[in-house]
Structure formats: structure tokens, C-alpha cells
């Protein structure tokens, strides 16, 4: 089986992350910003899994019983769980926001400044 070089994963992750960043910076819709944050988190997840696999394959070549390099995959699950919790809270906030000001435009959320 041909192995996909690690560079591909890195560039994919970079692209996803950049899309996320640009989305957060340019969009004003809170929901879209939220999605972009998720995109950034998952870009990191992709990278974690890719490196994890790479290290595991390298270690597996010498020792068949090794579990080296698999911790990152566990870490990805943590991130997913935290992201899910965050989405729950975040979406709830957005719903409450919408009920109050009938908009999800973050540029209206500058009341603390005044």
C-alpha cells in the first residue's frame, strides 16, 4: 500500500486552519465563526492523528508489540469531547443572544465598551 507522505497531511491541516482563521477574522455571523473555530480544532486533530500514525509506524518496524505514538489519538478524542461541550454552551449562548437582540452579528455585541 502506498504511504501518503506526511507533508500532505500538514498542508491539508494548514489549509483547514487558515480557512478557519480567515473565517473567524472576516465573518460577522456568530454561527459561522463558531463553525470556523470547529474547523481549526479539527485541523489540529488531523495533524495529531497523522503524526501519531507516522511515529507508530516507525516504532512498529522494530517492535511489533509497541504502543508508541498512539497517545495522540487519545488526545484527539479529548479534543472532540471538549469541542462538543463547547458547541453545546456556545450554541446555547447564540440562541439566547438571538432571542435578545434578534441578530447573531457579533459587531452588535460591543455593549461592554460603552
Amino acid at each position, binding site marked *: 500500500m502506498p504511504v501518503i507522505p506526511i507533508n500532505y497531511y500538514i498542508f491539508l491541516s494548514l489549509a483547514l486552519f487558515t480557512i478557519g*482563521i480567515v473565517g*473567524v*477574522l472576516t465573518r460577522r455571523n456568530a454561527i459561522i465563526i463558531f463553525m470556523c473555530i470547529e474547523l481549526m480544532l479539527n485541523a489540529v486533530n488531523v495533524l495529531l492523528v497523522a503524526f501519531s500514525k507516522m511515529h507508530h509506524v516507525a516504532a512498529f518496524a522494530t517492535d511489533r508489540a509497541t504502543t508508541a505514538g498512539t497517545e495522540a489519538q487519545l488526545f484527539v478524542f479529548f479534543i472532540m469531547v471538549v469541542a462538543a461541550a463547547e458547541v453545546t454552551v456556545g450554541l446555547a449562548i447564540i440562541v439566547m443572544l438571538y432571542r435578545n437582540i434578534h441578530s447573531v452579528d*457579533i459587531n452588535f455585541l460591543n455593549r*461592554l*465598551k460603552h
Partner: protein
Amino acid sequence: MSKYVFLIPLLPLVGFMINGLGRNFLSRMLVNIVGCGVLIASFVVSLLVFREVAAPGATPMVIRYFDFIKAGGLDIQASFLVDQLSALFLLVITGIGSLIHVYSTAYMHEETTAHYARYFAYLNLFVFSMLLLVLGSNFVVMFIGWEGVGLCSYLLIGYWFENKSYNNAAKKAFVMNRIGDLGFLLAIFWMLSQFGSIAYADVFSKASTAPTTVLTGITILLFVGAMGKSAQIPLYTWLPDAMAGPTPVSALIHAATMVTAGIYMIARSNVLFTLAPISQNLVAIIGISTALLAATIALKQNDIKKVLAYSTVSQLGLMFLALGVGAYTAGVFHVMTHAFFKALLFLGAGSVIHAMHHEQDIMKMGGLRKKLPITHITFLIGCLAIAGIPPFAGFFSKDEILTAALEKHPVYYVLALATSLMTAFYMFRLYFLTFSGKFRGSHEQEHHLHESPVPMTLPLIVLAILSVVGGWIGIPAVFAENAHLLSNFLSPVVASVRPAHPAIHLTHSSELALMGGVLVLILVMIVLASKKFAKENIDTAEPSGFSAVLSNKWYVDEIYEAIVVRPINWISSFLSRVVDNKLIDGLVNGVGKGVQFSARQFRLLQSGQVGSYILIMMIAIILFFIFQLFWKL
């Protein structure tokens, strides 16, 4: 006896504490008892200590009390040294101190009790400091006493602190003394770095190992200290102004004891000075110049205390001449006799001032001989003693200084002789103007003229006796071989160094002839003074020409004012106006204003736009990565 040495300074300190703290509720009688009692007790202990030291075969006692400063290699002990020199000074200080305390009880009787107690507290503190000064076994303890006497001098000159000019006189004395003290302090530091110790024993035993230049530097700095304390050119101007204090204070501090601290210090470090001929010459030159200058000023002063003050400066100059030519014993001898007759003269003057209701102008006195018989007789004895008439005390000590000066260099001799002649003239001018002729003051003053009470006349009589016999412990070899008791007594500590090649070698007969010649000249001076001032009508016209220069003290105060005081005032006002107000304040306020300003600018970043925060965060992260990855440090 060494067990009880600590009592000598401790007793006056206790007296200071009691009188100082209890000044508001102690009765006058108690103040008297405490103030004089501690001094007399201290005198008795000093006598016992002296007797022990004077016993044949006595060795110097070093009594250690505790570690004063101990840090690394530095070890400064709080310890006392009792040897012949300090024992002699102990006697002079506590003895004359006791007499002056007794005298003060009558002289200061017009003061309110609280001020009266304050006066005695200061006086006791002064004696404590002075005893510390002479008892210390290293330069640091001496310096503590040195500063203490300076402080007490300041406090007592400014005793009548309601009078602004008295306060100024006190400040002047303090500042002048500080200049000298700096020299002393530097000398201590230098000795510490050179010898690793400031105990007399260590310093003097290692002195010959140090290079001459270093010794010269140290001794000149020591002498700068002595200049301040003992009122020598250029720091002498404080002493005449110090007459603002009560007269007994002038007698004790500014004539008999404190001002001789410089002599004591140099006599104590005679080992160093002998090894540094340049400093010795400097001491002699400064000494004789001061003696001459002060004597000329004294010729034209009309304030009874000012004449005595300039006379003191002049006599101190002679003592420094003696030290400078290596006749340390003669210097110490003159300190002692001078303490007797100058204290006597000051106390006599105090008695006159007391009788005249605080009138100090001798032009307003005259004819006091009949009204103040005891004061008159004792004052006359003082004058004879200071003029150098045998067999009074001053004759022996002055003659010894003159002889030593002649052996060193004839110029010193001529100048010292001129000083002595002027001394005789102005002292008898003072005497005749005060006691003979007819009274020139107001009727009221004349009506109230009275002899002083016993507590004042008793010290006068005792001091008069001392002024007569005090010189007999130093009879020169021309009269009797080996009769110079003082020189024999002091020889273990202070050995006079005779020049190896005296400029003029004196045989006994030529010495006697010189002595006779000097005596005749002095008598001529006295006769001149009597011709000029013992008559009924005294010329009281304003002085003109050269005598105006003299009566204005060579305008030294004015010169100092112009070249020192004014520039310093100008610099301080410049520093205050420009440096402090503009620069320092500008800097401090500038920091505050800068922070406020930048805060106002940075506040604008806080826009509330979440996007802009994230943008800044991003830029920061990217910069961080660039630094981390591409900036190879």
C-alpha cells in the same frame, strides 16, 4: 584602679541623663548637686587613676569593654587607654570642668530652672564626650568623642537659642568643625586601609613600615581635623563667634579643653608626625601664622571675650608651632598651663560681665579694681601668666616653645617672640582698660557693681593658684638639672624630638641671656600698655587706616563670605531652581505623564471588536513562530 576607669566618663553621662530628662521637675538644688557632683566624683576617680599611672614602673593600661564594630577583618574595640598623656588630660578636664561647673551655678542663676538644667545637661555631656576623646584607645573612639564635643559646642554656643545671631554663630562653629572632621575621618579610613587597624598600638608600631608619602597624607588629613577643632587658619573664624555662648562655656570648651583636642590628637600620633617631616613643617607654619594673625586682631578688639578668644586662637597657634617643631612635650605643657590661665581669664571676664550686667565692651568699663578686688587680683595673675612673667605658669611653657622654635629655625623664633610680645600688650591693654582708670559705663551699671558670690570667686582663686604654680612641673634644664617633671612623666608616650642639627645651638648661658632679653621686652610691652591705657581719658575714636583693618579682623569673615559663602549660596539656589525644580521634578512628573499619555493611546486598542483581538493574536503568533523558527539566536 583600671576596674573603675569606666566611671570617669560614665558619671558625667549619668549626670547628663538625669539633668536632661528631669529638667522640668528637678529642683535647682538637685540640678546643682547632680551637675557638679558627678564631675567632682569623676575628678576624684581621675586623681586615683593618675596616681596609679604616675607610680614608677607603671605601664599603659588598655581596658577593653566590648567589640564595637566587628566585620570580616575589621575589628574595632570599644576600649580605653590610660597612660601618662591621657591621665594628664583627664586631670585637666575633670579638674577645670569641676571648677567651671561650680562657677556656673552662680553665673547662670538668672536662668529659669528648666533652662538651667538643660545647661548643666549639655555641660555634662560635653565632659563625657571630651573624656571619651582622650580615653579612647583607638582613633574611632577618639572620633566619637571628637564629634560629641563638636555637638556640645554647637548646643552650648546656641544655648540662648532665641537670639538669631547666636544660632548663626553655633551653626558656623558646627559647619567649620565638620570641614575639619571630614579630614579626620578620611585619615581614619586611610589608616585602616594602610595598617589594617586603627588601634593606637597597632598603627604606631607599624608606622615605620608605611611609605613616607602615605604618612604625609595621613598626617595632613589628621591636621585638617585639628585645624577645625583647634581653630587654626583657615578654619579659625568660628572660635571668636563661639563667644556667643555663656562665659563659663567659653572658658571650658573654647579655651581649656575642646579646642586643645587637636593638640591632643597630634601629640597622641606624634609617632606618625615625626616620620612625616613635610606635615610637621606644615603644622609649624600654620601654627605660627595663626598665632601671629590672631594676636594682631586681638590688639584692636573691644569686646572682653573677643580679645580672650583671639588670644586663645593665638596660643593654640603657638602650641601647634611646638608640635610642628617636634617639641610635643612643650605643646602638651602649654595646653595644660594655658588651660589654667585661660580658664581663669575667661572666668574673670565672666565675673566682670556678671557685675556689669552683661556688658562686654571694655570701652565702657574701667576702674573695676576697687569694686571687684578678688576678680581683679586673679585676673592680674592670669594676665601675668599668659604674658610669660616668671614664676607664673605661662613663662615656663612659652619659654620651652620659644627655645624649641629657635633650635628648629630662627624665623619661627622671631615670629613666636613677636606673638608673645603682642600677647603681653593686648592682655595688659585689656587689663588696664577693665580695671584701672575711671568707670566709663552708665550710672546705673556703676551703682550695681558688686563682687561676685563665692561659687564664682572660689574657682577663680583655685585657678589663680594653679596659674602660679602650674608651670613648676616643667622647669627648664638651665635652672635645675632634671627638674622637668612633665617631660620625664610623659616620656614613655610623647618623646620630644630635638632636631639632629639644630639651627642654633644654645648653651645654658646664652639661653639664660635670651630668656632675660625676652623678659625685658615683655615688661616693656606691659609698660607701653599701661602708658597708653591706664590713664583717665581713653581715646575712643573710631579706628582708621591699618588699625581699622585689625579691628575688622583683617576682613577675613568678609573674604570668606565673598569667596565661599556667596558662591555656595548661588550654587544651591541654582541647584534648587534649575536642577531640582526643572530636572528632577520634570523627570518624576514626566514618568507619570508619560504613563498616562501612553495609557490613553493604548486604550484605543480596546475596541470591543472581537475580530481585531483575534487578528492581533494571530499576528503575535505568527511573529512568535518567525522568531522561533527563523531567527537563529
